[in-house]
């Protein structure tokens, strides 16, 4: 990393403009040229990685929370494992998985799912636990069965907490999925790493980094909106 900087090597050297060869701050024409071939696929891959991880993570965490809701002893071990996974730095967790599953998307997804578990489990369970006892008693008194109480009373009332958890889990996964490109060359991390290796090609750094930031903020705002739509009764609780 020392010595005089070698000339910038531009990938997809279609129509390199002066701006690109000078490595100016931002070249719109490069983005235009490479949108279809590089940036858009990377964005969609990123989205796919995120959705798979959050969906699978949610199924696991939700099921565990439903169990822990009744069997209190489940809560502690699950939280402990989740917290352990959550505290291990992403790059370390990825590398620790490589000996088992190789430099593959499987490795990436396992790690990403691991990071969602603590957040989704704790929020879902907290949502269940916040359901007032008198509401449950009323439901039982009206003759609702266990399963009916879960789906008609507990899940709707826990929804604000569940949605908040999904929101945090989603932005967390979007962030970590950029790092995942180090293991498996896909997603928005891929053009970022490439741009750094190409002796810091600024336009690609800004474009890919900006897309990742935009995706995260958009996803966050989108989930806030969904949260409001599905929980009209909780609106005044917003901070």
């Amino acid at each position, binding site marked *: 990393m020392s010595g005089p900087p070698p000339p910038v090597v531009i990938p997809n050297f279609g129509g390199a403009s002066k701006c690109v060869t000078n490595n100016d701050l931002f070249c719109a024409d490069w983005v235009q040229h490479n949108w279809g071939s590089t940036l858009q696929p990377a964005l969609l891959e990123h989205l796919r990685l995120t959705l798979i991880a959050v969906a699978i993570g949610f199924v696991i965490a939700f099921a565990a929370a439903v169990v822990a809701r009744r069997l209190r002893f489940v809560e502690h071990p699950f939280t402990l494992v989740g917290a352990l996974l959550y505290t291990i*730095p992403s790059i370390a967790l990825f590398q620790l998985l490589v000996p088992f599953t190789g430099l593959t998307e499987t490795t990436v997804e396992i790690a990403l799912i691991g990071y969602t578990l603590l957040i989704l489990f704790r929020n879902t369970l907290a949502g269940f636990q916040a359901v007032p006892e008198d509401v449950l008693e009323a439901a039982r008194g009206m003759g609702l069965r266990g399963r009916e109480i879960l789906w008609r009373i507990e899940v709707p009332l826990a929804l604000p907490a569940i949605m908040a958890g999904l929101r945090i889990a989603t932005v967390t996964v979007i962030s970590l999925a950029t790092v995942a490109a180090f293991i498996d060359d896909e997603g928005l991390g891929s053009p970022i790493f490439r741009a750094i290796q190409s002796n810091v090609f600024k336009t690609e750094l800004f474009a890919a980094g900006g897309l990742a930031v935009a995706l995260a903020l958009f996803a966050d705002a989108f989930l806030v909106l969904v949260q409001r739509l599905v929980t009209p009764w909780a609106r005044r609780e917003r901070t």
Partner: protein
Amino acid sequence: MRPVIDGFPWITDNLSLVFDKTGVHLLIAVLALLISIAIAMPVGVWLGHVHRGGFAAINISNVGRALPSLAVIAILIGVIGLGRNTLIVALVVLAVPVILTNAYVAVDTVDRDVVDAARGMGLRERQILARVELPLGLPLLFAGIRTAAVFVVATVPLGALTGTDGGLGDIIANQASYRLEGVVGAAICVAVLALLIDGLFAAIQRAVTPRGLRGQIDFAAVQTAAASNPQEEGTP
């Protein structure tokens, strides 16, 4: 399985390298954390004391948490160029929101009746802050610092992926030189380091909790998006 097992002897065989890298790792992390605290805490505490700017103070951490670390580093490399300082700036950008929000909430949510009583008894604003609001807000304030500390330690290795110092990340990112055992060994070290930092700050957090409050408070950092729910904040 073998490389994971081999990771442990690798650590003992390369202790001086591990110590060196851990030293750099902690140096960068401590520097970033101190700068973040110096920026975020006064602002958060002051806003909390005057009960102003709550919307901004709370939402800054919602936005801050959403920012992908690598993307922030990438953008800053584009602006500042490669180097250790770029990494530190990025870490500060990412750590400030959580510290600021927690400092704000810590002071803002101190029981208004207690503050009212303090004011009515003739404590000056400075004294109210120093003797009532800060001691009572300390656990929550430290929760923010703890979250930020773990986050920073976990994020330093990204420096190595982006062509600068990354502490232990230098080993993780360089399988060509250190082989898989080295990569795995360093990964274990980073994981242990993060857990140790978390434990250390948890202990400090308990130690700074006023005795009259012990057993009554939740030690989790403010989870702004989760509104009323307990939740920890962004590490990996």
